[in-house]
């Protein structure tokens, strides 16, 4: 993102005014910024990634629902739509406009130079990123772990493999084989 704006000649430098994107380069200038516009861009990138992940879960749900008996085992289906909902609501929808457009525009629209607490703003992004860590499973001291993504991946690959061979037979086997050997569930 940064390199395209680097002016190489005095003429080019003259035609590209200094703005919040090219005023500083390097990952440190982005990750330690207090500029509300840069933080808005950090959020934009993050929520786009989360939107894609949440959307992927949505596609899995919809694919599952093309069959009246479903394609994944019921426990997996439960986790699919739960993850879709949690990711979409808390990691995409709630931050979407306030944290990207709001962060970017609010100070400008009221004639201010930045938000009131710029470092708290940056902290909020770090907390948001920190939340990703707890998506797959809760904190270790909760005493509860579910190797969820690996399970989904396992079933997905099984499904894809089955398309190459005997579709109906493999699907039946899949439904009968949703036993605990496929996912580790430590209480």
């Amino acid at each position, binding site marked *: 993102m940064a390199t395209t704006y680097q002016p190489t000649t005095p003429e080019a430098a003259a035609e590209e005014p200094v703005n919040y994107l090219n005023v500083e380069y390097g990952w440190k200038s982005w990750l330690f910024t207090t500029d509300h516009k840069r933080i808005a861009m950090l959020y934009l990138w993050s929520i786009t990634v989360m939107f894609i992940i949440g959307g992927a879960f949505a596609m899995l749900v919809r694919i599952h629902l093309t069959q009246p008996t479903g394609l994944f085992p019921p426990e997996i289906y439960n986790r699919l739509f739960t993850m879709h909902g949690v990711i979409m609501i808390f990691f995409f929808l709630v931050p979407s406009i306030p944290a990207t457009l709001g962060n970017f525009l609010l100070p*400008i629209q009221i004639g201010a130079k930045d938000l009131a607490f710029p470092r708290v703003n940056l902290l909020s992004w770090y907390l948001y990123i920190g939340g990703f860590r707890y998506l797959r499973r809760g904190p270790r001291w909760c005493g509860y772990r579910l190797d969820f993504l690996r399970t989904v991946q396992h079933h997905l690959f099984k499904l894809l493999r089955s398309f190459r061979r005997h579709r109906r037979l493999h699907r039946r086997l899949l439904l009968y084989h949703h036993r605990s050997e496929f996912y580790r569930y430590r209480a």
Partner: protein
Amino acid sequence: MSWMRLPLFIWAHYATGLIQILGTPVVAIALVLVAVERIMHVGIFDPNVGGDPILFQHIFWFYSHPAVYIMILPGMGVISEVIACFSRKRPFGYEFIAASSMGIAILGFIVWGHHMFVTGQSVYTGIVFSFLTFFVAVPSAIKVFNWTATMYKGSVTFESPMLYSFAFIGLFTIGGLTGLFLSTMATDVALHGTYFVVAHFHFVMVGGMVVAFLAGLHFWWPKICGRMYSEPWAKFAALLIFAGFNLTFLPQFVLGYLGMPRRYAAYPPEFQVLNVLSTAGASILGTAFFIPMIYLTYAWFWGPKAGNNPWQAKGLEWEIQSPPTTYNFDVTPTVTEEAYNYGPWEENKVA
């Protein structure tokens, strides 16, 4: 800058902020209690140990209903801005839109029980929540009327942010009206836990909020990166998203009405056609969402330079350069003219 000169985008975020401050700690404590309950193996919500699961529902929904207003209010703020710009008119009833945002924020806190009609709570409680939920629909309706009145006799043009705004008004209205079916306790008893609910909230969340987000992204993209995106691709993506969205979620209303439950891994075979239609729509929608990601990213690097104000919109953000400098303004501006000071419509016709 006085309160009544603030852009409606700011009013919307002000209301959102109020809800967030009051509501989020409650869900935080609910989650803390659940977490500690799991660790200490004792029940505060667990009925086996004398706990009350309904208490959890109350605490959870006390936040989660205002949460949906947290999600939608900023979107409404964006739509106010976009419609004003592309109708070249001051929003009709500016004070009412601002007051409605605050009204939604306040009323949103007293309707959480409409998620709990079938939990066995008292019928009288249900009646009260049902009535209050009807009441909270009024400010949203006021806003929709104001937006349409803004467009009336305005000089309307059909750039892609405006296309998204049209989609928002239509889809959010459908979502809101179906919400009324759900807030009526009698019909909710039949519709609770069915795909009708799923369709309702996807209409307001995706058809409302995501569409508003895209409208805002497109509207302010030239300001954010200083370059303009490809308008034909944007129009195409907007139409594809609209088509895919409707194909995905309109069948779900029918499914819910016919009784298909939500969160079930299997369903009776007679529902398969509608489900397959919905999945087909989802595929289109999913593909369509990628298109803006592509052309917006392309525009960021290689788009034609946009000036400070490519839409000739009113607002402080359009007075400064695109992209803005780090400190936005050299001197704090003094705002003396009223917001959305678009001139008489003949002068403002955009070619």
